[in-house]
């Protein structure tokens, strides 16, 4: 490994540590943490309490998708 590669490897580790090192705010601990922002660390950070808003809203939104698809399909069947 040459000097440049060593530098990149060391800087890479520092870079990857940046996001986890930012202290979580009170609101984030109480359900306002963001799934997408923490996507690569979810295995370590996930709890329902922390991501409550994202989880509930995302699931509800998928329910709306299913309902809309069902409505679209139902309309194609009327009068068939």
């Amino acid at each position: 490994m040459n000097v440049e590669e060593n530098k990149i490897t060391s800087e890479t580790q520092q870079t990857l540590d940046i996001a986890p090192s930012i202290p979580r705010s009170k609101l984030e601990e109480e359900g306002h943490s963001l799934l997408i922002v923490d996507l690569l660390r979810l295995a370590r950070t996930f709890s329902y309490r922390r991501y409550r808003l994202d989880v509930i809203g995302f699931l509800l939104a998928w329910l709306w998708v299913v309902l809309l698809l069902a409505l679209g399909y139902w309309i194609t069947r009327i009068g068939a």
Partner: protein
Amino acid sequence: MGGLSKLDLAVVFAYLAGITGFGLYVSRRVKDTEGFFMGNRRFGKSLMVAQALTTGTRADFAIGVVGASYEIGMAGIWYQWMYIFSTPFFWLLSPIFRRMRYTTTADFFEERFSKSLGVGYSFFALYLFMLWQGTIIKGAALTIAGITGVSETLIIWGVTALFVLFGVAGGLVATVNTDFIQGIFIIILSFMLIPFGLNAAGGFSGLHTKLDPQMFSLLAEKELSLFPVTMLVISGLVGIVAQPHHMAVAGSGKTEMNCRVGWCYGNFIKRLCTIGWALTGVIAAVLFAGAYDHKSRELVFGAMIKQLLPSGLIGLMIAAIIGTVIASCAAYMVSGSALFTRNLYKKFLKPEADDAHYLLVGRIVSAALTVGSLLFALYMPSVVGATVHFVTIVAFVGIPMWVGIVWSRANSKGAWMSVIGSSTTFFVAREIGWGQGWQLLSALLVGFTLAIVVSLATRPEPADRLRRFFTLLHTPVGEEKNLERVELKVAAD
């Protein structure tokens, strides 16, 4: 005027006078660029819903879906439903946009990656805004000209003058405050033809008797089969973050919850409207069987309005179409001028001027962008063609945005190579004759791979830049004191 009755004309003129007067009235409250571009981030849930619905719903979308469904059946719905599976992600993405506290998407690229990427994105976004406005104006003019018999050119200039006057004067405040009214008009536009059309076609059973069963399938054999639709859905999700007006649409709410509810559910209402457009197209397939071919199918929407609606409702429909043009074009124009003023003019041409100067520049640029969009309108092959072109190219810019939010190691070189690599792959795949689905799949794979590999092979972004960016993302709206503690200079909300 052309084939319009006095009642129709009265409805159209009353609408136009009301909406323009309102834009001018609201303009008195717009004193600075933050108010002009982002409405001072004060919008509540209902205004955010209305804004998301109206900026994301345009008459040309309806015209495109009706035309496609006229030819291939209900499957034509996918030209707009390609975003239905992306919509739940709006719930997750909107607080990210709000927490960034940026005014334009170019700010994101500049702050997260580099100045060069911010400039590159600004030019790309200006191109998109002109393309969109051109498509909208063209689609509306085609339909209104078909109904009234007035020259298409005259309608183009008239509609353009209206939204320029409206948007230049009032900025985002004016467009959002009228979005309630425009939203109602959009829903009217989506469903008004259906009862009249069904009555003329013999009801739903009449449709099934007269049409091939394939016309009622949500997947068509030609034009929109499963694989290309799947790839359009994926491209739509990748590209959604990079659409230039979304920083304002998703980030101008007062709270994060307002942004979530507004962006997500405003778009769900649009998906509902899309069902109405597709059904209208299928009805048209019965009423105008064989009257239009692949190239002229987008004219069928205007023909239905003219043939089916009684006097007065034709005027209402024309007002609805003009309403969507004004709402969408004014919003795009404001976002485009924000991009130019803040990310190009202020940074590279005149960094030290006062806010009034930038506000004036923003207004001048708004008008200039519109002239560009008029030129685009003249060379548009079709509304649907322009939509697919847009979904495709915006995905290439969406890749580095996703990677940049999720992965702190992503850097500017990786982002540049991703955009260049994915767009090159797409155009090469198209030239060698690959199908649409394979073009998109190969471009996305190359884009994501290059973003990761090139970032890993080159040095990361400076730690200060990354700390600033990710601290913003980890600071919910309402906890700005935490930003002051780490000495981050962010505009107070």
